[in-house]
């Protein structure tokens, strides 16, 4: 077993799959709640805010883990363009998982809303109230969410391409199964 160099560390793998589930759930919760006038709108929003802040905290931990433990190298025979695409999309995903919750928090602050994570748990505002800033951030929250979903689709497609077609060990570097 050369697990130490061929796979992500256990911490990285656990964080990856836990956060993959959380972030995907957030994307579906987000688009589902804004398209609903039923009670779903309320209870989904009540999940959306604390779950989003949990993602923010985990993303910071994850970035620290990432900086401390560099990922296993991509296969040497992978074309340069694909390597670049992998690198760029991973950093885009890291950026978006940090930016999305920060924008959510900032836009509620700018809209003058109390940022409630539960019946009485309230976060302080992180942006001065401003309708213009609210509108810009609220649209950014949607735009970045769509970008995140498209990046995820490409990411999942690429992971399966590595696992099913190239069978080069990239997928198993994250699943941990060799």
């Amino acid at each position, binding site marked *: 077993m050369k697990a130490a160099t061929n796979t992500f560390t256990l911490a990285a793998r656990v964080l990856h799959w836990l956060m993959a589930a959380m972030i995907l759930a957030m994307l579906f919760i987000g688009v589902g709640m*804004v398209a609903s006038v*039923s*009670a779903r*709108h309320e209870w989904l929003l009540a999940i959306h805010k604390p779950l989003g802040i949990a993602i923010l905290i985990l993303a910071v931990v994850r970035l620290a883990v990432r900086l401390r433990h560099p990922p296993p190298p991509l296969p040497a025979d992978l074309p340069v363009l694909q390597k670049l695409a992998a690198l760029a999309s991973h950093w885009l995903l890291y950026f978006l998982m940090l930016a999305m919750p920060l924008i959510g928090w900032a836009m509620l602050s700018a809209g*003058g809303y109390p940022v409630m994570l539960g019946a009485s748990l309230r976060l*302080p505002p992180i942006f001065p109230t401003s309708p*213009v800033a609210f509108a810009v951030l609220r649209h950014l929250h949607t735009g970045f969410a769509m970008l995140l979903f498209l990046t995820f689709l490409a990411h*999942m497609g690429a992971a399966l391409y590595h696992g099913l*077609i190239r069978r080069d060990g990239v997928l198993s570097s994250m699943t941990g199964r060799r």
Partner: protein
Amino acid sequence: MYDPVPPDSPARRIGAWALIAAAVGVAAVAFGYVGGWLAPQRLTPDKLIDQFQDNAGTFAGYRRNHAKGVCVTGYFDSNGRAQAYSTAQVFAPGRTPVVGRFAIPGSNPYAPDSSVPIRSMALRFALANGQQWRTGMNSMPVFPVATPQAFFAQLQAQRPDPATGKPDPTKLAAFFAAHPETAAFRAWAKTAKPSASFATESYWSLNAFVFVDASGKRQPVRWRMTPEATDGDAGSTGGADYLAADLAERLTQGPLRWHLQVTLANPGDPTNDATKTWPDDRRTIDAGTLVLERTEPQDSGPCRDINYDPLILPAGIAASDDPLLPARSAAYADSYLRRTSEEAHLPGSAAPSAETKR
């Protein structure tokens, strides 16, 4: 690193590509369905707000309903009597600052004050612990409909006929025939006259809410603001904008006061139907006095950029199972996003020059 794998048979390769395409495709379709793009029959906040604009035109920067109004500021003076039922800090004895808004329903900010017999009061209580309580109340004891679907159908029925500029009476009649729950509201509307003042009206929450006490006990409630001023008379002193003038005039003589009357439901009273009042004998407590001291125009006043979403609630007050509440919350958010986008002049938002009546 890894053991090189033998080259695949073409059939296996095609199978693998099909699997990848299926995985990506299923994820994309599921996302499209949940987001409503692939479920066009679902009632969405967007559709509700589009219908307001369809009916009255688009007035950039203004609320999509209750567009005409004025800001007010003051405070709520709690007497502590509601504390037995709700832990909300606003009910502890003492003052909580309030930014409010009086308005008339309708999407046209230039409509004459006499065009509807209803007035509204919206309030934002800023609690000392940083939590907020926002509420929007109307000057009528019952709402015409009980569900967002019926509200949407009513908006559609009220859409002006392009030929006459007025709603089609046959469509309205068909709507009312299909919605007998509107009867109580229509009976009220028959005798209601547009008041000459905001100050002399009572304002009802209409929707039910739930008070939660220190032991977690839940008590369904409705509330209303009852005025101290009683010199109300119907009809106006003329002009189209007499309400704002009357309010400013009265405030030069001193603050205006209302009492927050909280009605406690008995077990079994409907909490999910704003078309039904509760029996008169239900216990009502006077929770304190709303004191309004100043008024400002809405385009420069502090109420302009507030979304009076009725589900912004402090700990100690919770939503009931009334289906209108989540619909209001979702629709107000959409209206708020549109009007703030117009204030920000974002591309794609309505420009001020588009203030035309269809």
